[in-house]
């Protein structure tokens, strides 16, 4: 999934002739118009997460030696997913380095879950450590890595700020003991559209299948986003779906692909097609569209009335990493609400850290973001979001197989 942040924010702003406050104002205004509020109510909200249900789960496995330390730290994260460090002083990375003396290398080379997993699989499967000390895969890949035993248990006693994790994200489905992962950011999957191309507001998943937009529809190669949304459109619950129950949704996507309704399945690059006018509407991630709309005001984002998907990208420590102490220090740092707010203000996704909204409100530069529905969706919206079921290995193979037989048809 993608997480872009204003690339070279300052440059873009000057180019568009906006100062920061105007920019945030517009972002705020956009955020307000972003989420439709159809009549469905939060009542149906399937919260499978049981925030305080501590029930003594069996695990966690052996914690990595918490004193393993090298003085440096390498994190691989999604591109544009942190405030930039271009002046080398004021970015979160710079501030962390200065505060701790830890030599943090922050790489933005995590472009795709499958691709990244394919790259690390040969090493981890053979018991070799990979270079990065922290990576931030999407929740379902986190679950897979935990299941395979390819991640270290977090030294939580060195991360006191982990207590700031939002209750709804504690001990989540993908990490039932909460011992292995801490979310970096969460986000929502909905529909992005260009109102100039569609000529009307879109409200429903069904709009993606409207023959009027034939050949102008994009969907994501991230199966859980695309399939999840289509399942919701069919009135099914992606958080409890079985392979057999998903057959209708697969058939629907396949038929739309075969007759040319769907133009392309993309990764992050759906934004290229959306901005270039090749897509009229597509499955999209919440944080991107706010940003793109600054330059292309006709872009809209909606959580369809049938519901939307929710996901998290989580920090984990790959097995065999040798900078455990440093990794803990960094995690602790980004879970401080002040630092988390600085990052959140740039990425416009949903911060997993409690207190971020208050921090944003304190700062006149970011106060506009504190009320963004995109960053802080209300209860009603949250009630309509689903997290895709945690598939076991065999089930996942079935789903992946069917889905990629459609996308590589």
């Amino acid at each position, binding site marked *: 999934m993608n997480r872009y942040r204003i*690339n070279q924010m300052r440059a873009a702003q000057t180019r568009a002739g906006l100062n920061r406050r105007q920019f945030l104002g517009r972002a705020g205004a956009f955020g307000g118009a972003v989420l439709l509020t159809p009549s469905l109510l939060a009542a149906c909200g399937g919260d499978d997460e049981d925030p305080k249900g501590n029930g003594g789960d069996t695990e966690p496995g052996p914690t990595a030696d918490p004193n393993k330390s090298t003085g440096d730290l390498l994190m691989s994260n999604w591109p544009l997913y942190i405030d930039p460090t271009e002046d080398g002083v004021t970015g979160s990375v710079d501030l962390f380095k200065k505060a701790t003396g830890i030599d943090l290398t922050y790489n933005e080379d995590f472009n795709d879950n499958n691709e990244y997993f394919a790259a690390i699989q040969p090493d981890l499967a053979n018991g*070799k450590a990979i270079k990065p000390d922290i990576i931030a895969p999407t929740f379902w890949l986190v679950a897979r890595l935990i299941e395979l035993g390819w991640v270290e248990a977090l030294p939580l006693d060195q991360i006191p700020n982990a207590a700031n994790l939002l209750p709804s994200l504690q001990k989540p489905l993908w990490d039932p003991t909460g011992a292995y992962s801490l979310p970096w950011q969460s986000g929502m999957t909905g529909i992005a559209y260009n109102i100039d191309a569609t000529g009307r507001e879109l409200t429903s998943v069904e709009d993606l299948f409207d023959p009027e937009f034939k050949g102008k529809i994009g969907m994501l190669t991230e199966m859980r986003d695309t399939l999840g949304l289509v399942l919701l459109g069919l009135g099914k619950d992606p958080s409890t779906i079985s392979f057999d129950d998903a057959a209708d949704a697969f058939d629907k996507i396949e038929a739309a692909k075969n007759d040319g309704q769907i133009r392309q399945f993309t990764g992050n690059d759906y934004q290229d097609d959306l*901005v270039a006018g090749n897509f009229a509407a597509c499955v999209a991630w919440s944080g991107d569209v706010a940003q793109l709309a600054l330059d292309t005001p006709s872009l809209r984002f909606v959580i369809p009335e049938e519901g939307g998907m929710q996901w998290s990208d989580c920090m984990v420590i790959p097995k065999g990493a040798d900078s455990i102490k440093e990794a803990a220090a960094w995690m602790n740092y980004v879970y401080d609400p002040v630092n988390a707010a600085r990052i959140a203000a740039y990425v416009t996704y949903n911060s997993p850290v409690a207190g971020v909204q208050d921090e944003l409100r304190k700062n006149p530069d970011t106060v506009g973001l504190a009320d963004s529905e995109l960053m802080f969706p209300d209860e009603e919206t949250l009630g309509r979001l689903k997290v895709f079921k945690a598939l076991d290995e065999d089930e996942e193979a079935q789903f992946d197989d069917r889905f990629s037989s459609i996308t590589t048809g």
Partner: protein
Amino acid sequence: MTTTARPRRRLGDLVLAGFSILVLFYLFMPIITIVAFSFNDPAGKFNLTWSGFTLANWSDPFAGGDLLDAMVYSIKIAVMASLVATVIGGLVALALSRYRFRGGALINLFLVLPLTTPEVVLGASLLNFFVAQDERILFFDVSRGFRTILVSHILFCVSFVAMTVKARVRGFDWSLEDAAMDLGAPPLRVFAKVTFPLIVPGILAAALLSFALSIDDYIITTMVRDVGGEPTFPLYIAGAFQREVSPQINVLSTLILIISVSLMASGSILGALRQRRSMA
């Protein structure tokens, strides 16, 4: 030739020239786009639609240090890969064209195989090879990174080098060497004075081809690189396409174009001069 045929022939020439120029235009369409978009002032982070002229991107052609680092890394790999591939591939070509020996035909077949193997297959097989270790049949454990990229690039260049050099020296009269030796020249001297000058154009062409293949390789490199390691230029571009398409990519590409065209032009001018002098 009859008088009536002449105008028709001229017309034919015109059609041929017009068609050829159109084909050249086709070849240059993306290049024109790349150069033009280096002057684009993109509305957002994707430099894919035209939205206004600016010189700003050129104010600092080497802005975006990562991009430049990737380029330098690619050049480093390409130089080393083409050097090694040219030497070992050139030796194979010389052996094949200079000697008659048992197994020559089989070697020719071996050389063709990497060329008929799709890149994605070659890359995947190399990846599996590099990560297979101790428990397997292999004694070679290389962790992925600079070395594995280099080794793979050399591999796919060797066949191209051998084929190119072989074609260039085909029909070369090896008895010239004998003549030189008969005149009392020691073998090394013969190689330096007789053989090498004759094969040098083929060697040069092969080295250039290898360099071009290596610096542009994406498919194989993406599989034999290390996670979290430095990206080569094509890897960087592929990553960038996922998040932002910056005009700096166009600026750097245009620069590379200008540099290579001027190198080529000066090369051909030098060649022309030398030719004129030798004729005089």
